[in-house]
Structure formats: C-alpha cells, structure tokens
C-alpha cells in the first residue's frame, strides 16, 4: 500500500464552547477525487484548514503525503495547490505580474501549461486583478493552483457565487487535470450535482461529524427511495422500520402517499407495510440529495 495523500485520524476541534469537528477520520488515496459536502457550519472549511496546516489539531492527527503539515509546512505546501472560496489575490497586480510573482515560489512551475491555461481561460494578461470579474478571479485562482502541477489540489467551494458557465469551465479544468495525470483532489461543495459529476468518493459532514463516506456509485446503488400508499391520510409521515421519510408534511395524494428512503432491502419493510395495510407504489434509486437530506435529518 502506498501512503495515502491525506490521512486524518480522530480529529477533534473546538472553538470556545462550539465543537467544530468531532473525531473525524478519513483517508484520501492517490488519484482520488474526494468531495466534501455538508451544510453551512458542518465543518468543511475547518477540516480543510487543518489539511492545509493552517490549524493545529487540538486532538487527533493530520498527515499529508505521510507528513505533518504543521511541522514541515514548506515540504507539504510545495506539493499542494489551493483555491479558496474568497480567492484572496493581490488586487493591485496585473495578471501577468501575479503569474510571474507566483511562479518564483514554485520550482516545479510549468510555464507552457500556465500559458495554455491563460489562453483557455481567456484571461486578459495586462489587466489589474482588481478589475477582473468573479468568474475571471476564479479562473485565475485555479490557474495559479494548477500551474505547478501539485500532487494534491484542494478546492474550497470552487464554484460558490459563480454562474453556471464559469462553474462548468472550472470543473472542466479540474476534470482535464484528473484525466491527464490522475491527480488527487479534495474539494468541498454544497452543490451535490457537482459532487456527483466530479467526485469518486464523497464524504458528508454534519454538525462536525462524518455521517457518510463512500463511493458515489455505491451510495446510489445502496439507497433506494420508494413511495408508499396508506389507507388513511395523516399529517406526519407514518413510521416504517428501516425507512427514513423524505417528506415532513403531506405532499402527495392529500397525505395518503409518503416517500421514504430505504437503508436496507425492501423486504425488511414488508411486515410494517402489511400491518399498516399499506401498498408499495414504486421503488427507484435515490439521488445524492435525498440520501444527504435523510442522513443529516435523521441525526439532528
């Protein structure tokens, strides 16, 4: 087994009396595109800051390439590309100046590749950074994070606040580097659609805890949604063993039909269905969205 690119073990973090991360453990093997999802305040950014070595673990352990990012930041950061949500770039520089400036920090900087990206992203090389649009800033940030061909690419909400065209552009560039070089990527997002497209594996954080960590295909294959028709209408979803309600208030047939997410085989439901004189109407694969709503809803 080669060393995982990222290894987080039993990481625990508190800010004052607020617990931001609770015993988080995860492993990102080489070549994996790892999607981190969760609502606001779930702990995504706190976790990423630990991975970058910006926070020192209070409890637990973080390793990148087998190294402690707080102990040997220069060895770790040289192999890591990072695009933050707020893309804090020096506003007074020109695009070409910023590229030249960043290049000086990285011995592995790939000039022709940077040039290729500059053209592909259609960035104006002589404009000042402060005059760029949000989309251009995101593209420039990604260029700077990719051009030294880092072993690990970390993207914190790469498409937040961007229109669909720029988002597709950014994701396309990430996919290109993955396809070409099998790069390892850790990215956080609140857009499940995006995670579904791009990630091999997805980890869901809820209230600082990992509630789900599996391959995207496995999650979809494991979880099924179904619709059940009951003889009487009700105001809240009837309880069924092994099924989490997807609706919290009557949505179908005036409260007689309810949608559920199944966490096991449909057969585990049959006794409950028979007892309630209920009928199974359909059964299909669940979307990531539904799995996550149920996974976080069931735990609050």
């Amino acid at each position, binding site marked *: 087994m080669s060393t995982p690119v990222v290894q987080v073990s039993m990481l625990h973090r508190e800010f004052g009396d607020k617990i931001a991360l609770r015993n988080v453990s995860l492993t990102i093997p080489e070549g994996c595109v790892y999607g981190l999802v969760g609502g606001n305040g779930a702990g995504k950014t706190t976790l990423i800051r630990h991975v970058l070595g910006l926070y020192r673990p209070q409890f637990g352990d973080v390793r990148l390439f087998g190294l402690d990012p707080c102990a040997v930041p220069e060895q770790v950061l040289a192999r890591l590309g990072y695009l933050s949500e707020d893309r804090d770039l020096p506003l007074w520089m020109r695009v070409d100046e910023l590229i030249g400036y960043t290049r000086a920090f990285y011995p592995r900087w790939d000039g022709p590749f940077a040039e290729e990206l500059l053209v592909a992203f259609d960035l104006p090389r002589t404009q000042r950074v402060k005059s760029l649009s949000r989309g251009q800033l995101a593209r420039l940030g990604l260029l700077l994070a990719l051009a030294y061909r880092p072993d690990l690419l970390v993207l914190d909400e790469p498409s937040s606040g961007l229109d669909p065209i720029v988002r597709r552009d950014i994701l396309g560039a990430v*996919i290109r580097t993955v396809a070409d070089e099998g790069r390892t990527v850790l990215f956080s997002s609140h857009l499940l659609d995006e995670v579904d497209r791009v990630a091999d594996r997805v980890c869901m954080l809820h209230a600082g805890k990992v509630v789900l960590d599996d391959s*995207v295909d496995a999650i979809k294959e494991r979880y099924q949604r179904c619709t059940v028709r009951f003889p009487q209408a009700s105001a809240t979803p009837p309880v069924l063993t092994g099924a989490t309600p997807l609706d919290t208030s009557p949505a179908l047939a005036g409260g007689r039909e309810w949608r559920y997410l199944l966490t096991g085989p449909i057969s585990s439901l049959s006794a409950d269905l028979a007892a309630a004189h209920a009928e199974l109407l359909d059964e299909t694969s669940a979307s990531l969205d539904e799995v996550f709503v149920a996974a976080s809803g069931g735990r609050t």
Partner: protein
Amino acid sequence: MRFDLSPSDGVPLYLQLIRRIQYEIAAGRLQPGEQLPSVRKLSEQLVVNPNTVVRAYRELEREGNLITRPGAGVYVSDTAPQLSRREQHARLVGEVDALLAHASDLEVGLEELLQLVRLRWRKGFGARSGGSEG
C-alpha cells in the same frame, strides 16, 4: 454524441452513460466500426469524472458493444447487438410507469392520457420517427 447526464437522477452516472451509448447504437446513431470520443474528451464534454467514462466503456466492452484497439481508441463493435423488440419494450417500461404514476397524481385517467400521447405523436414526433400510428 450530443447528450447530457443528470446527476439529480438516482441512477449512477456510469449506468446512465452505458444506457445512453447502447441506445445510440440500437437506434443506429452510432454505427458499427465508428470511433467513440476518448475518455478525456468525453469526460470533459459531459463534465464528469474520467473514471465514470472508463467504467462505462469497460462494461460496454464486456457486453460486446464496444472494442478497444490498443493505441487507437474505442470503437463500436461490428457485432454490437441491436435491440430486439422485447428489449426495446423493456427500455420503455420504466418511463411508462413513471408517466402513469405522474398522471395518477394529477388525476388524469388512462383514456385522457392516451389522447394526449396521440396528440403529441401527431404534433411531429411520429413523423420524425417515421411511424405510421395516428
């Protein structure tokens, strides 16, 4: 190939891709011997993880739909199975069921639904597909 995959659908993307390519072959829009886009190109075009395309191509190869010529690319196999009538029906059953469920939610009866289907068929779809119904 011009199509998109829908992540919001519960079906894994590689399965959506497999079905889509099989459909294109069965419908004759992908011809035996025709080359498919490279993994890199298709994953970029669809904005999906390259492994999704790799997995779909691999399974399609195992089922005899595609063949890989090392160093040259992926092609539609000369013996790619065209769908039998029964298989074509099987493809449609799921969508018919979904349509029926939807109609039932809206309290649209079978006759009304069939009328609507015939109307849409006449509106041009039938002519385009060369059908004679209606």
